[in-house]
């Protein structure tokens, strides 16, 4: 199972735009899928190129994001990073569904009443 996930954040939610996110969550699940290491990286400025570079240097396996331009999607895919885009919702709900193996591109996990 993929261990390292990167999620651009906007508050506690998945950031609506990959290229405008200044905070990212990088979470690393160990082999037993028990212990999860999380860190939040703050970027000096929003930049899709810098974010892609971070994905590569951190050896991220999966990027979970919302809006991302085709160019960056294709780049990350070419670099063998799995990209689940158009995901909307709070980060905890998204991670929970991901670890259950049920998260896919386009999922909307928002509490519409809240």
């Amino acid at each position: 199972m993929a261990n390292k996930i990167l999620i651009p954040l906007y508050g506690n939610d998945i950031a609506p735009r990959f290229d405008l996110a200044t905070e990212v969550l990088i979470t690393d699940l160990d082999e037993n899928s028990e212990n999860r290491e999380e860190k939040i990286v703050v970027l000096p400025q929003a930049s899709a190129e810098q974010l892609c570079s971070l994905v590569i240097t951190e050896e991220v396996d999966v990027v979970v994001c919302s809006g991302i331009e085709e160019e960056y999607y294709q780049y990350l895919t070419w670099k063998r990073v799995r990209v689940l885009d158009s995901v909307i919702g709070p980060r905890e709900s998204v991670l929970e569904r991901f670890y259950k193996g049920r998260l896919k591109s386009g999922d909307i996990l928002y509490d519409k009443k809240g």
Partner: protein
Amino acid sequence: MQPLIDKIPLSIVVLDTNRRIVTLNRALEALTGFSKEEASGIPCHHILRSKICLKRCPAMHMNEESEPVCVESDLINRDRKLIPVRINLASLKGPNGKVVGYLETVEDMRPFRELDAKISQAYSFAHLKGRSPQMEKIFQILPVFAQSDSSLLVTGETGTGKDLVAEAIHQASSRAKGPFVKVNCGALPETLLESELFGHQKGAFTGAVENKPGRFRLAHNGTLYLTEIGDLPLSLQVKLLTFLDDQVIYPLGSTKGFQTNVRVIAATHRNLEQMVREGRFREDLLFRLNVVRIHLPLLREREGDIRLLLDYFLNSLTSRFRKNIKGFSKKALRILMDYQYPGNVRELRNVIEYAVNVCQEGQIQHHHLPAYLTETKPLIKETYTVKDQVPPLIQSGLNEHKLHETEQTWTDLERKMIMDALVKTRGRRSKTAALLGWGRSTLWRKMKQYRIDQ
């Protein structure tokens, strides 16, 4: 209300006071890729995904007295396309005057951007750009010349756009669907040039193992563009003259002529009248070519065009290299406007391409320009040798840059810049990097690329 807003071609979204989506219309569904069922109840910024939502949402500070707001932004739709949009936001008030929600319209600006691009094609003919009186006259006369089938002679110094004029005339003519074949008369030795132009018959010379059609036959029903016609050897000038008279070509080694329907456009930077006086160019050929003549002025003589071209190349190159450079600093602009451009438009383009590549900021500064522009004030010498008219030479205090007739690519220019800077700093690489406005690692990489480090 839903059936009503669905009929409106403009994208509309209605928000509650928490900026969550109440409903949206079909046009917005098509624009964003989200259906109203999916979007309902979701905060607007997750669906619209617009830059302005995340930076400074106008709805955040709206109250009862606020006026509607119009902002330009962009959004990314579900197909991962970045779309420029104009967003209008107004508050919706209840019977008691309090804000009960917001109405947002989203206009797709892509058609307008395409129109802007077309409008920016003003001051141009094909790929030629200019708004000076000299170029206006040329733009007016080019379509007329294009419609004629007469031979055309294009003169002008290196980098003034002779190739572009030839191609523009071909494209605007009735021969546009036919081939446009270009031959550089100065590029090949005489023996090869004859075979190249007129073709050869099998066995005409050693190595002629089959018939070769030649460029004239390849240009049949189209246009043959002979650049550097002044370099055409006298023996071939005779053959060209025969063609212009009879429209018949005789391949090398053949006694049989072939009829071809070709329009000839010739170009040169040389003074053909002078060459005729010296016996190096046939007078009768000059008369035949000189039926229609276009002379392209020097860039420095084209009033107002330098500024137009600086902006044009900056826009097209920043777009091509995906840079976010907005313009020139005052000092950089002054340097660029004062420079004489002996290499004309080609040199101007090379300078801007260099600056765009070097610049890592949002504006081109003077230190992003090639070093030779900012060194001692260049002197323009209008020198003509006894034999030929040559383009004017620039002589600076430190460097002698002889701009040759052959094209200087950006790579050649950059290599020369590095060499000149190294000479100036006596090989000190840190100072060289500072002079060029680069980091040391960038200089090291480029020196390795051009093998200057060896």
